């Protein structure tokens, strides 16, 4: 019996449109309306500035632990920018800029990080799932959403986000397999930021790329420069259009970098060098996009300054609003709400127990 080659559809592309200096590959330039380009620019700046403000609040003890996104703004915003409101957004826990893009308010983010469950409440019903902390666990939810979308004969898509570390988890592989098997309108966006806490990308998997994980499932896989918002958008747009028109799922690997710590409880100096971080500073997604927009004549240094001031004021207003709510404190007994649709008799008893205890504490402190 001979050995012979089995031909399988196997390719992984790499896409970069704007290089580190903002030089454009004109052949690859996506057609994007000016309004969208400027909205993206605003989203990038807002994501960065809000992240820095959160870090300040955390360092001052005004909020708790959180996972910074700095450096990864383009890889998440370029992807969600290809969605429409009726599509589903399924984040992990490092997509704050994308969450804001999808309509979550800054004050709700601050409230959550200050340890208030109310932060998860949103003003309007948006097709966004809340943050999922257990790594890769949300990937399969996007598959279920995509299955339901098709069952209801809608042309929406479900886009989920996860990191390089998540590709080592079973849920990731189960999700990709299911989506490809059923040819579902799902888009898997991997933010390869090179670090899973202290474990570098090279120690996460023997695979040369993460995009190639798609190959085993006969799904298109593409690696893009995740700090190039145009490349991310192009790949996401293509994947979304394919999914919408019944062409099945796509895996997009955005090569980016976690410029800060895993969470504020982590100290990256223990396991990575400053040189590595400095090298990635040069690949910052924001200046190169600004160079591009300036080249197109739709952005100027002056406009950037105005925009920054506007964003600073917006962030300040959100901080004020959130801190007012934090100060008011809300009702601790609310912790019983939303466990079930209806409070069970046992929970009603326990809620009453807590209320009585709190009343007694109040009385003691007055007496």
């Amino acid at each position, binding site marked *: 019996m001979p050995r012979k080659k089995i031909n399988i559809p196997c390719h992984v592309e790499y896409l970069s449109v704007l290089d580190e200096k903002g030089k454009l590959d004109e052949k690859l330039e996506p057609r994007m309306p000016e309004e969208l380009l400027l909205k993206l620019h605003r989203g990038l700046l807002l994501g960065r500035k809000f992240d820095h403000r959160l870090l300040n609040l955390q360092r001052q003890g005004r909020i708790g632990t959180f996972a910074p996104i700095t450096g990864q703004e383009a890889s998440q915003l370029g992807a969600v920018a290809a969605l429409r409101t009726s599509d589903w957004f399924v984040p992990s826990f490092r997509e704050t800029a994308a969450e804001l893009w999808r309509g979550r308010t800054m004050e709700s983010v601050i409230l959550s990080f200050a340890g208030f469950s109310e932060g998860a409440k949103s003003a309007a019903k948006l097709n966004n799932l809340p943050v999922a902390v257990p790594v890769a666990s949300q990937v399969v939810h996007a598959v279920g959403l995509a299955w339901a979308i098709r069952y209801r004969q809608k042309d929406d898509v479900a886009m989920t986000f996860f990191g390089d570390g998540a590709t080592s988890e079973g849920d990731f592989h189960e999700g990709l397999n299911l989506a490809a098997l059923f040819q579902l309108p799902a888009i898997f966006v991997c933010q390869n930021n090179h670090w899973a806490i202290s474990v570098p990308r090279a120690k996460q*998997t023997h695979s040369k790329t993460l995009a190639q994980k798609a190959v085993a499932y006969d799904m298109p896989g593409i690696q893009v420069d995740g700090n190039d918002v145009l490349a991310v958008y192009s790949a996401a747009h293509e994947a979304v259009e394919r999914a919408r028109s019944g062409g099945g799922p796509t895996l997009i690997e955005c090569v980016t970098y976690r410029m800060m710590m895993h969470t504020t409880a982590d100290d990256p100096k223990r396991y990575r060098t400053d040189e590595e971080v400095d090298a990635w500073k040069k690949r910052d997604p924001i200046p190169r996009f600004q160079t591009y927009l300036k080249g197109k004549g739709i952005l100027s240094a002056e406009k950037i300054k105005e925009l920054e001031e506007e964003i600073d004021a917006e962030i300040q207003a959100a901080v004020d609003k959130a801190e007012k709510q934090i100060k008011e404190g809300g009702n601790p007994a609310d912790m*019983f709400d939303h466990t079930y649709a209806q409070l069970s008799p046992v*929970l009603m008893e326990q809620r009453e127990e807590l209320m009585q205890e709190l009343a007694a504490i109040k009385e003691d402190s007055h007496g």
Partner: protein
Amino acid sequence: MAKMTMVQALNLALRQEMEKDDRVIVLGEDVGLNGGVFRVTEGLFDQFGDQRSLDTPLAESGIVGMSIGMAVYGLRPVCEIQFSGFSYLNFHQIECHAARLRLRSQGQITVPMVLRAPYGGGVRALEHHSESREVFYAHIPGLKMVIPSGPRNARALLVAAIRDPDPVVFFEGKAIYRAFREEVPEEEETIAIGTSRIVREGKDLTMISYGAMMRPTLEAARELKEKDGVEAEVIDLLTISPLDDTLFVKSVTKTGHAVVIHEAPRSFGPGAEVVSRLVEKAFYFLEAPIARVTGFDITIPLFSREQDYLPGVRRIATAARKMLSA
């Protein structure tokens, strides 16, 4: 003897066992170069190298399944799941295999592994980082579930767990990782798994707890003595399963009063088993209904309200007073 935090004491247990026995391998996420997110495995990578202090990819099911394979081969893996809230991903490996291979192979194949994981609230952490789900593991036949309450017993129990012929899930209270220090002897010390301890003697009331809740329990006992003249006997379970009921049953036959304290939710919590044992074995000695001071039957809230959820000194002392005045 050196004064150590629980983190340092656990580190000592691992280091000494690794020095004595080359079958002992530490593995998990960030346990190598980074020394673990709570630094329990700090220095092991430098001392023993990457073959015995193994940084794994993010794969809880893989870490535990791989530990099972290593244990079957004759090694003594001590895997770390970074937070017990992420241990559900590996739950089926524990339930379906670690706890059953001895039975399935009729004693031919055994799984002498330890799964270490931080548990519990009180450190202002994010969701999934504060829960207390020991009962999931305590419910599994073939598995041992251990929770130390301080540096010295943590070290002694971890050594015993590593040497145990059966799989042990070992929960470490985050709230007491660095909260206080104790003298921990350099020379070997173990505590037999499946034995509880009396940590304070008393005649009026029996308080039964374990893990991070031992601190507020002991403080409540002191307060009851000072303010009410009540002498509480305090029992530290140390092992949740198999549960040692000898000491608390004996204690309650003396005191007639029992309060069980844990931060896990109340219904079907570890306290339910303790209370059942008391009803079965000390019923005629009980002078008042047994009280459970526990977390509520809800997911522990985000940190701004976790102190309202967690049993504290006041809640424990109040329950004791109410019972004694009944």
